[in-house]
Each structure stands twice: as C-alpha cells, then as structure tokens.
C-alpha cells in the first residue's frame, strides 16, 4: 500500500484484506470500499468511459459516482455496474473494469476518443438512420464497444426476500440530521425505522472531524448510535437504500445482506426488499456535490472536493502529493484544510468568487495556502491522469477569461461547484421543488405526503442547521401522531461564517461561441460535454426532456446525480432562460439500480411468479406423450405425437380418428359459472343476445355475450339445471373477465335482482367424447341415462353415474360430430376419463389436444373468440344474426344500430379456399384485391385461422374481409411472410357438413 496515513480514519489497520482487480492482487483494510482500497494502492485509472473510451478515475465517494463502476464477482453471482465507492471489500473479492479491453491502461477502443468530433450528440440518430437494414449490423458492433457491465448469463443461485414493515416514523438517511430526527422521535416513544445505505451510519460525519456539543463529532456519533440501538421501538437498517417513494407513504427499500462478506461467510438471503408503510417520513437524504466543467475535467485525479476529504479523513488515503482546489463556495476550503493536515501540499485554492471572507478561507490563508479569487481552472494537464492545472483570471462580469494562464503542477484537482439536495425521493412522492437563487440549488417546496425534508436534503447545508431541523422534525412527527415529545434541545454545533456561493457552470472560453474550447464534461458516465448541450439546442431541442434524450444527459446507472443540474444550467444559458423556467427532468424510482433478484424476491425460482393450472387429468396426458401449450395459466394438451410424428402428422391422425370413429379431449379448462336465484333467467336475458326465459330445464343453449359497444366479448353454452339454476360455460381465457363482467352489472346496475354466482371452473373435470361412435362409448359406462337419440337430444343435459360416481352429461358439440361432454367432480376426473378411455378401445378411441380441436371447429366454421375476433367484431360481422333476439333488450344491442355498425363494408367473417389446395395460408396474412400492389397496399382484412384439413385433404382458412359476405366466390390475394401473394376464393365458413347432419347418428 503506497498511499496510507499512519493514524486516524475509520479503517481497521489490524485487519488486512486481499482482493483482485483486473486479475492483479491488492491489499486493503477492513472498512475500505473498492474505491478507497484502490486509491490507497495508488490505482488511479480504473476504467474507460462509455462512448469515447477515455481513461477515468473515481470522482466521488458515494452514490453519485459516475466513473467507478465494476463487474463484481463472477458466474451466476456477478453483478454489473457496482459503484466502487459503495461496495465494501472482503477477503477474496474479485472484480474487473466494466468498459475496457484489454485493460483500462491500454484500451483498444480508445481510438473512439481520437475521433470524438465524429461522435457528437445525437450521433446514433444521425449515423444509423440509413440504410435501415444495416442497423442490425451497426447495433451489434456498437453494443459491444459501448455500454457498461455484463448481465449474468447463468441462473441466479442466490435467495432473495421481501418483507412488510410498519412504523410511526421512517427516517431515510443516517447523517447527523437523520440521526437526531430518529433520536427525538424515539425518545417520544414513536416506533422509528432508520435506514441508511452505507456500511456505517453517520453520513458526512464519517468524513469530518468537527465538534458537536463541545465533543469530537466521532464521539457524539458513537453515543447517539448507542442510544438508538438501546431503544426497543427503534429499528436500524444499515446497507439499506430507500429506492422508491410511492403513494400513501409507501417506501420501498433494499438491504444488501451478504455482498460485503466472503462467500464462505454468506448465509441466508443475499438481498431483502422492505415494503415500508410509514405514518410519517423524514427525508434526511443529504446532498450531492456537483462538479464545475473545465477543459479535460475528466482526467483521473479530478475529483469532487467532498470525496477528497472523505478519502483523506475517513479512509486515511492521501491520494496525492500536490493538489489544487477549485471552488465557487466555502465548503471546499475544508478539503484544502484536510489535505494540508494530511501532509499534502495544496498549491492553490482557485475560487471563482471575487471575495472570500468566510471563516474557512481565513483558516486556509492562515496555513499559508495561496488563494486565487476571481479565477478558474481552465483545463487540466496530463495524460491518463492529472499532472497539472492551468489557472486563469475571470473578468469582472465572469463572462470571459483575462490575462495569461498559470500552470500549477499537481496530481489532484479537488472541485466543488456547490451542492444539490438529494430531492429524488421527495420528487417521487409527488412533491415539488423550487430554485433557490441564494444557495444555487433546487430545494423542497410543495410536499403532498406526510413527509418533511431536513438538513442538506432541505438545502440547509450547515451542521448546526441540520441538527436543529432534525430535532424539530423528530419532535413534530411524534407530536402529530399523538406522542408527547420531551423538551430536549437539539445538539449544538459551531456556526461558521460563510461567504455566499456564486454560480459557476462552465469556463467562459469564448463569449461568442460558448460551445468552443477543450472538451468539458458534464455527465461523465455518458460522455456528455458542454458542447453537446449547445449542439442539441442549435439543432432545435429546447425542452429539457428532449435535450436529455438527444444527448443522453442524466441517463445511465447514476441517473445524472452529479451532472444533471450542471447540464440544466448550461441548457438554460444556451436558451437564454433562467434555471427555474428551464426546469428539471422527472425523478423516477429507482434511486439507484435494484437487482432483478431483489425485485422478484422468493418467487425467483419461476414456479411461484405465475401460477400454473393443471387439470385433474394432466398426469394422464403427460404419461401418454402429450405436448402442452399454455392457454392463460392453464397447461392444456396440444397434441399427442406417436413415434416420430410431426405436429401435422399427429393432428391429421387425431382429426381423422375423431371424424371416423371417436376421439376424447380434456375440456376441463373451459370457464364455468353457476348462476342461481329467482331472477337468474331475467339476468341472462340481459347478458346474452338470445332468449333464455323459455329454455326448458335439462336443455342447453349457445349464447353470445357482447360488450355495451356491441362487440363480441365471449361465447359458450349455458345449461338450465332447474328453473332458477343455470350453468354457464365461458372460453378458457375469458373465465375471469366474464365473472367480473357479470358481477359489475349485477352489483351496481341491477342490485335488486335475486341472483347468486359462483365460479366453479376448478370444481369440475370434463371429458369431451366426440365422433360417430361416441354414444356407444359413453352409454357403455354411464348408468341412469337413456342415450336414445330422441330421449337425449342434441343440446340435452342429463344426470347419471359411472361406478356410482355422479356424472353429468351434455350432448353438445364443437366439432359438428355427435359428442357428449361428461362432467364429474374433479377429484374423480381421472377415473372417469380412464373408464371412458377403456370403453373406447374397441373403437380405437384417440386422445386429441387443442390443435385438433381448432382444426375440427374451423372445418365447421365455429368462431374462437379472441382468435377470429379482436374486439372490433360484431355478431353480425360473424354472420350470427340467428343468435340475436329481436324481442328483448340485452347488453350491446343498442350499439348494433349505430351508424358505424350498419356500414356494409365492415370486415366480415368468411371462409377462404386457396386456389392451390396445398398452400396453407399464414394466420395474420393481409388480404389484398390484386396480386401485387404498391406499398402502402390497401389492406382489406386478415386471415384469422388457417389449417391443413386432413378430412378434406386440403387447406382451409377463416378470415375477416371487408364486405366479405357479399363477395362470395370472388378471388382475393393473401400476403405471405416471404413476400409472395397467394390467390384464394371467398366462400362459406362451413367447410364440412353444411347442413349439420353429422351429429344425427341414429
């Protein structure tokens, strides 16, 4: 370790820790972050920038870090883009730079930087507009060259948890004001939750040696935390980031439980998400220091002043031999003092203000450090890292440079352009911010939830103010909730006389062409420079949201925590507006990136996230070789291949067997709703398009359900079990939405109707036995039902039993064949299925799946709602006038008379037969009047269903075609994916048995 002070700091020198960075071994101490350990080892260049591949070093010491991103750990446990300023080191830790090849000191793609004039803002939009087909090629190369870390390719092996938390007072941030707020609320007996993202609580106090209540701040911090830990009503969550602030004081936070431990010591969940409901929230989120753009301000060794103090004071890593401090406010003078105390020569403090009469500048002058007022660093000198700073004077109006530049040799430039309160959570909660001209920052203004901001988050940057506000907020929150806060005063800190900050957003190289000059970076992570913002404005992008998207300002994993406000100020200047009227971009969750594992929580194994529904017969299907398809959450048998059969071969066999003898299908997934009550038939009259009052008990009827807009919503067969008792079938996918639909009408529009509904989809197992031999099969196992063709007619419903188990049989058909649906309590579903299967053996009974079901119904022109319809199809478009009552009102009826629905050229449901019977059309294929048309072609509709029909030994298709009902016999052309068009003739939707005689088996 080349760079470490002998004493002080918060590192434990008795606990050395070995780690590897880019394959090379290093040693740090317990208490180090990746950043402090690398800096202490003299490693300055740690990665390459996103676009230009410029060498970069750390700029910050915390969440704001834009450059120091690493790929941490390997294999399934790897995490991309970890901020090295926050990640703790542990024995055996391995990590690499995210964007450098082969390594950050020799990066092949740094060539991009040499040609940066060719890569301006909007470069992607400009370069890849044409030719469109080459985009895929470009994209591949660009994605490889740019971008950040790499997502893990393997299944995550870690465990993640979620938990709900409730508290009276949530305090976000354990800096001085957050700790005092928590103390005051806790002393009043409120239930307090204090979350902080760092490994240690204390915030900025960890990097300062100041006095609180007349004692060293480290002493005060230690006893305050001890007091908090002693409270039973206080929960302290370290390594926990509050990343989202939602409605109803609902705050989401993630705790990193094991990422700071060697693998051998990791136990339990890796991360835990807290879903916190807080009665009151105190935001003590602090502030982020911002840089001042100057020429080549991205060289390794240019850092934020507060970060420099942090590395020197907290981590005892002195960073440099000679430093220059560049500032527009008094805060950075503390950094000069900290550097001086650590034995580092401070060559100069460069201050853009003309006067510096505060207490801290006085101390700095007293130390013999040169203070240059009304001056600016114009550019850095050096190669990959800094070797000097060129300094020049500013004119009285600060709008130009005057005099000659002076070179100060240095290997560190500490910069402070002022502070931005961390208003992210406030903004997410719906709060508004306003610009404070005196403090040169956005600060909290309107608050819409039960919340208050304190300390630096409230633009109260001094320690004395922060402690005062924290105490007040803790007391006030407790009092609001009915607690009785004790009258204890806020802890005291010395107040320091300060000279006001003055805005300094960039170096005025050229008053006429403000975009001129050496590259000055605003957003380091996305390589956005001052000139990019001016370019965006010259090219017509004026809204801050547009400029953001054109230049990428504020994108990336840091979401512009350092660069955003600087960029907006420069934009305001370019637009000749003030900052408040230029505005900010929107702050959205998440505050920092959250892993997908944490979001998924314990559902990550894939089985709990989306429930799988299986029928009672599922295992039988699996044992008989079925392949399954997902229909909603259901797994339904798709087809049952035998041997090496293809899908088409299996479906051909299943179709022919069913039409020639008998097939069996699991129909259990159809939605089922029982409807009971004296007004049940009256209710159905309104829900369905056809008549229900006169339906005889023991009979079924097919019904159409429309939305109030007259469009087909669902269909199915409903059986009358008794005068006041109906059993409704819905489509498999529509079951839940139909139930909602029925409930909303019944509860809110016709609450006077005496009707009760229960969803019973899962209660019943249904086997559909289909084909000319189905009666022989079913009647041979079912007792108590007369299967005579007249005694048990089509659309009849009868009750009987199999082996003493009650079954309920409906003679209904979705194939045009004689067919019986045998329903039984789901617990006996497999038994009944196997009995039917055994009874069918003499007839070579064949199990079929959804694919054959679709072919069989298409051969008969039966609609599948959701496949042949799409929410813009009326029953008349389908040619279903027969199913619509003329003698009663029903939902959607009035809409059918609307002008739009009376148009004759609506898209209507027709059959299509290709001229070449071998060609199977593609579903979704567009329908044209001519074989070839200029693009954009006039599209007349599309193919909704298309299959090869084994029974007809040719292809068949169903389609929606403009004015199709009147175009029977005409030839149209269907476009195919390969660019061909295929001629087909419009005809009937019924391809087999148009008179419907097949189900009349004697």
């Amino acid at each position, binding site marked *: 370790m080349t760079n470490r002070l002998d004493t002080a700091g918060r590192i434990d020198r008795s606990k050395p820790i070995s780690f590897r960075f880019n394959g090379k071994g290093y040693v740090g101490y317990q208490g180090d972050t990746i950043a402090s350990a690398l800096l202490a080892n003299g490693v300055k260049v740690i990665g390459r920038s996103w676009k230009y591949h410029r060498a970069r070093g750390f700029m910050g010491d915390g969440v704001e870090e834009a450059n120091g991103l690493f790929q941490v750990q390997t294999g399934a446990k790897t995490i991309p883009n970890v901020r090295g300023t926050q990640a703790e080191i542990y024995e055996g830790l391995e990590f690499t730079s995210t964007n450098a090849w082969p390594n950050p000191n020799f990066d092949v793609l740094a060539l991009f930087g040499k040609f940066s004039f060719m890569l301006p803002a909007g470069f992607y939009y400009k370069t890849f507009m044409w030719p469109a087909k080459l985009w895929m090629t470009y994209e591949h190369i660009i994605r490889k060259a740019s971008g950040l870390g790499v997502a893990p390719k393997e299944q995550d092996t870690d465990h993640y948890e979620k938990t709900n938390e409730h508290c009276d007072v949530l305090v976000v941030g354990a800096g001085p004001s957050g700790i005092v707020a928590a103390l005051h609320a806790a002393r009043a007996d409120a239930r307090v939750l204090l979350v902080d993202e760092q490994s240690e609580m204390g915030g900025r106090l960890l990097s300062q040696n100041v006095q609180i209540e007349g004692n060293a701040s480290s002493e005060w911090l230690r006893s305050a935390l001890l007091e908090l830990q002693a409270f039973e009503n206080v929960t302290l969550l370290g390594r926990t980031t509050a990343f989202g602030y939602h409605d109803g004081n609902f705050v989401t936070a993630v705790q990193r439980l094991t990422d700071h431990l060697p693998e051998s010591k990791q136990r339990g969940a890796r991360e835990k998400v807290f879903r916190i409901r807080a009665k009151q929230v105190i935001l003590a989120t602090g502030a982020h220091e911002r840089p001042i753009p100057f020429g080549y301000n991205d060289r390794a060794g240019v850092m934020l002043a507060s970060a420099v103090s942090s590395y020197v004071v907290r981590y005892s890593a002195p960073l440099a031999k000679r430093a220059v401090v560049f500032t527009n406010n008094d805060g950075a003078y503390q950094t000069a003092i900290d550097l001086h105390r650590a034995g580092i020569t401070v060559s100069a403090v460069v201050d853009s203000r003309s006067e510096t009469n505060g207490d801290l500048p006085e101390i700095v002058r007293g130390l013999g450090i040169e203070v240059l007022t009304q001056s600016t660093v114009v550019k850095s000198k050096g190669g990959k890292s800094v070797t000097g700073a060129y300094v020049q004077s500013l004119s009285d109006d600060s709008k130009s440079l005057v005099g000659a530049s002076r070179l100060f040799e240095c290997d560190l430039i500490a910069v402070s352009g002022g502070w931005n309160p961390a208003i992210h959570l406030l903004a997410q909660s719906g709060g508004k911010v306003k610009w404070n001209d005196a403090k040169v920052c956005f600060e909290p203004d309107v608050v819409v939830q039960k919340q208050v901001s304190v300390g630096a988050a409230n633009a109260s940057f001094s320690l004395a103010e922060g402690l005062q506000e924290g105490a007040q907020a803790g007391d006030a929150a407790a009092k609001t909730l009915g607690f009785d806060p004790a009258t204890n005063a806020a802890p005291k800190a010395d107040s320091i006389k300060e000279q006001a900050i003055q805005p300094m957003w960039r170096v005025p190289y050229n008053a006429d062409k403000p975009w001129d000059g050496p590259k000055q970076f605003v957003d380091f992570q996305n390589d956005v420079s001052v000139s990019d913002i001016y370019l965006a404005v010259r090219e017509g992008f004026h809204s801050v949201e547009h400029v953001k998207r054109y230049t990428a300002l504020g994108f990336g994993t840091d979401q512009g925590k350092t660069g955003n406000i600087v960029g907006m100020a420069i934009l305001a200047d370019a637009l000749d507006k003030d900052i408040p009227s230029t505005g900010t971009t929107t702050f959205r969750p998440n505050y920092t990136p959250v892993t997908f594992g944490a979001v998924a929580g314990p559902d990550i194994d894939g089985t709990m996230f989306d429930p799988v529904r299986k029928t009672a017969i599922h295992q039988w299907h699996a044992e008989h070789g079925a392949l399954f398809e997902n229909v909603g959450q259901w797994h339904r048998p798709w087809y049952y291949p035998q041997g090496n059969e293809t899908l088409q071969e299996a479906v051909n066999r299943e179709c022919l067997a069913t039409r020639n003898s008998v097939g069996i299908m699991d129909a259990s997934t159809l939605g089922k709703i029982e409807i009971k009550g004296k007004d049940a038939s009256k209710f159905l009259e309104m829900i369905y398009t056809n008549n229900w009052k006169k339906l005889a008990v023991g009979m079924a009827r097919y019904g159409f359900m429309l939305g109030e807009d007259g469009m087909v919503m669902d269909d199915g067969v409903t059986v009358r079990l008794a005068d006041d008792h109906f059993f409704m079938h819905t489509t498999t996918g529509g079951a839940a939405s139909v139930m909602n639909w029925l409930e909303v009408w019944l509860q809110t529009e016709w*609450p006077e109707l005496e009707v009760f509904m229960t969803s019973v989809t899962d209660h019943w197992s249904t086997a559909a036995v289909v084909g000319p031999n189905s009666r022989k099969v079913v009647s041979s196992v079912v007792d108590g039902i007369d299967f005579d063709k007249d005694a048990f007619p089509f659309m009849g419903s009868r009750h009987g039993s199999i082996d003493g188990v009650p079954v309920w049989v409906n003679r209904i058909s979705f194939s045009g064949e004689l067919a019986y649906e045998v329903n039984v309590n789901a617990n006996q579903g497999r038994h009944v299925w196997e009995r039917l299967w055994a009874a069918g053996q003499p007839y070579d009974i064949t199990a079929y799946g959804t694919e054959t079901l679709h072919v069989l119904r298409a051969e008969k022109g039966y609609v599948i709602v959701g496949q042949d319809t799409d929410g813009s199809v009326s029953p008349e478009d389908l040619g279903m006038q027969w199913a619509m009552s003329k003698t009663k*009102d029903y939902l959607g*009826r009035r809409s059918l008379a609307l002008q739009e629905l009376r148009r004759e050229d609506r898209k209507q449901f027709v059959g299509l037969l290709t001229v070449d019977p071998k060609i199977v059309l593609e579903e979704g294929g567009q329908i044209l009047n001519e074989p070839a048309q200029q693009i954009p072609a006039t599209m007349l509709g599309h193919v909704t269903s298309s299959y090869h029909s084994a029974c007809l030994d040719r292809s068949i298709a169903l389609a929606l075609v403009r004015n199709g009902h009147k175009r029977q016999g005409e030839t149209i052309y269907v476009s195919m994916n390969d660019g061909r068009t295929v001629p087909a003739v419009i005809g009937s939707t019924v391809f087999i048995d148009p008179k419907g005689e097949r189900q009349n088996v004697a």
Partner: protein
Amino acid sequence: MLQLQCPFCGLRDESEFSFGGEAHIARPLEPDALSDEEWADYLFNRSNVKGFHREMWLHAAGCRQWFYAIRNTVSYEFTAFYRVGDPLPDLPNRSVPGAAK
C-alpha cells in the same frame, strides 16, 4: 401504494383492488329512445375530472364486492368510501391545485 377502505373488509392495499372507472353512469332505461349521439355519449364519454371524482372499485382479491369512492385525481386523496345504494356523500368543497375553474 394507495390504501382503500373497503366498506365490507376495511383498510387494504391497493393491490387487492381493481379500478372500475367513473361511478354512477346509469344504463339508459330505454336505449332505443336515445339518438346515436346520446347512446355514444353513454358508452364512451367520461367526465375526466381534475379534482374530486366519484369512481368504482372492486375488491378483486378480497370480498369481490364493487363499491364507490371519492378520490382526488390530482393528489389521490380518498375522502369517502360507500356501498351501492348508500346515500351519496358530498364532494369536498375544497379547491384543487391547478384544477380548471
């Protein structure tokens, strides 16, 4: 996440509910007496209030009852929850920031 007071079950998280749009839009008793424009108005046009709004909610993952709420569409504040058939609670007589006059 919002919290809603289901009139049947009590205070629950928003994730248990589904939203049903503007409340108290009665289905016309005689649809045929309406012109196309009037029927389309019933079908499609909603008041899109900026401010306090009567709306329907379903306790979908609970008692499955529809009920009504008054909510401020700007601040999302709920001021009343009531059942079908209950007398209508008054809309709060408060100004809403930014609401059209």
